[in-house]
């Protein structure tokens, strides 16, 4: 495992994108920073700009309005990057799949601009923070194979 991959695994910076969520998943994402779960011990911090990010934590169904903006944010994230689709809404639009204002699901929207995107799904509504940490760890394992 090269130095670059080691450094990427040890220092993942997360940028949180809300594409139309009910905010439950957002609360769980923010809970990761609290003393109980503390992802900073893995080197993960929440950053304020997609240009600083290695992980895009996407919550919410991707609405028509959010879809081009999510694609724009993904393109602004320097590669290599991992997308975490958090919650059943981000996975497959959940119970809202038949509503009139849905865009493509998050993974289809991102694969439309980058067919080789790495996307990890965290199921749940809303997923527990432990599930998100487990997904982040699995994403780190995926990065080892890059």
């Amino acid at each position, binding site marked *: 495992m090269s130095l670059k991959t080691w450094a990427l695994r*040890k220092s993942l*910076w997360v940028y949180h994108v809300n594409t139309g969520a009910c905010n439950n998943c957002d609360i769980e994402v923010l809970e990761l920073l609290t003393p109980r779960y*503390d992802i*900073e*011990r893995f080197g993960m911090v*929440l950053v*304020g*700009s997609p*240009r*600083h990010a290695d992980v895009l934590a996407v919550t919410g169904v991707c609405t028509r309005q959010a879809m081009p903006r999510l694609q724009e944010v993904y393109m602004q994230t320097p590669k290599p990057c991992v997308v975490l689709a958090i919650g059943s809404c981000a996975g497959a639009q959940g119970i809202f799949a038949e509503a009139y204002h849905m865009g493509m699901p998050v993974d289809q929207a991102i694969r439309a601009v980058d067919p080789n995107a790495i996307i990890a799904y965290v199921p749940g509504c809303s997923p527990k923070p432990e599930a998100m940490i487990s997904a982040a760890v699995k994403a780190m394992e995926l990065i080892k194979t890059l």
Partner: protein
Amino acid sequence: METPLVIILFIVAAVATLALGLVFRWVDRKVTAMVQWRVGPPIYQPLADVIKLMGKESMVPVTARGTGFLAAPVVALAATAVAAAILWMAIFQPQHTFVGDLIVVVYLLVVPALMTILGASASGNPHAAVGASREMKLLLSYELPMLMVILVAVAKTGWSFQLGSIIHAQAGSSVAWSISGALALVVAILCMQAKLGQVPFDLAEAECEIMSGVYVEYSGPQLAYWLMTRAMLLALMPLLLVVVFWGGLRPGWGVLLFLLKYVVLVALVTLIRNTNPRLRIDQTMKFFWFFLTPLGVLALLLALAGL
């Protein structure tokens, strides 16, 4: 000194300052985590951050002016490295300093802030523009008291602008052991807090823990240079304070005392950071102009009066 030796010493000083700065960044994050009842990151965390950033894609936005955008972090890093070399030379070999090197060091330590403003303005992003304007106001605020208290130290050590003579004149008792010197040290610590971009004065990069605002469009290696510059500043500013106010490095037991003073100043940065909220720009400017600058003037008057 011969040129190859100078180059080698310069590289050694820069790399050592970078390593020391990264360790101090870790100390800062670890102490913050412990204050918040968390387990913090491991000791190699800032190093991993820098290496990771060097390996990422570098992006220049379409709206940015490429020249200023890309040149700013490099110039900032270079200026900090040269200041590091001069300061460490003053610590270890005071006889090799030159007249006016105090002014050179102070000037070089202003360059990172100027480059921040340049890089942020060249980003073409409204967040960065707001950050740049705040950084400008901050620069106007804290430089004045800083220079005044450095003048206090210069006044008390015989009016020489050479770091070597300043250290030499403190062989008996350092500047900080007089009333004006103690006042000057307190003012300098608060100005150092602002220069390092730490809470309560970090509004140029508010909104987020590591970087946003001025650095919002930077990615990849350029962001790594900014991180390295900030780490080196964290190692250099307390060093400057120890040299100018607190006697520098003396042989024998003085080595231990020097290390203690150095670590105490770094710990003060973290302590002030963890116990204070962030101030607004108008509160910051009022604090520096109407509270610290009069204190600096008072310290200067006391120094001139001999106290």
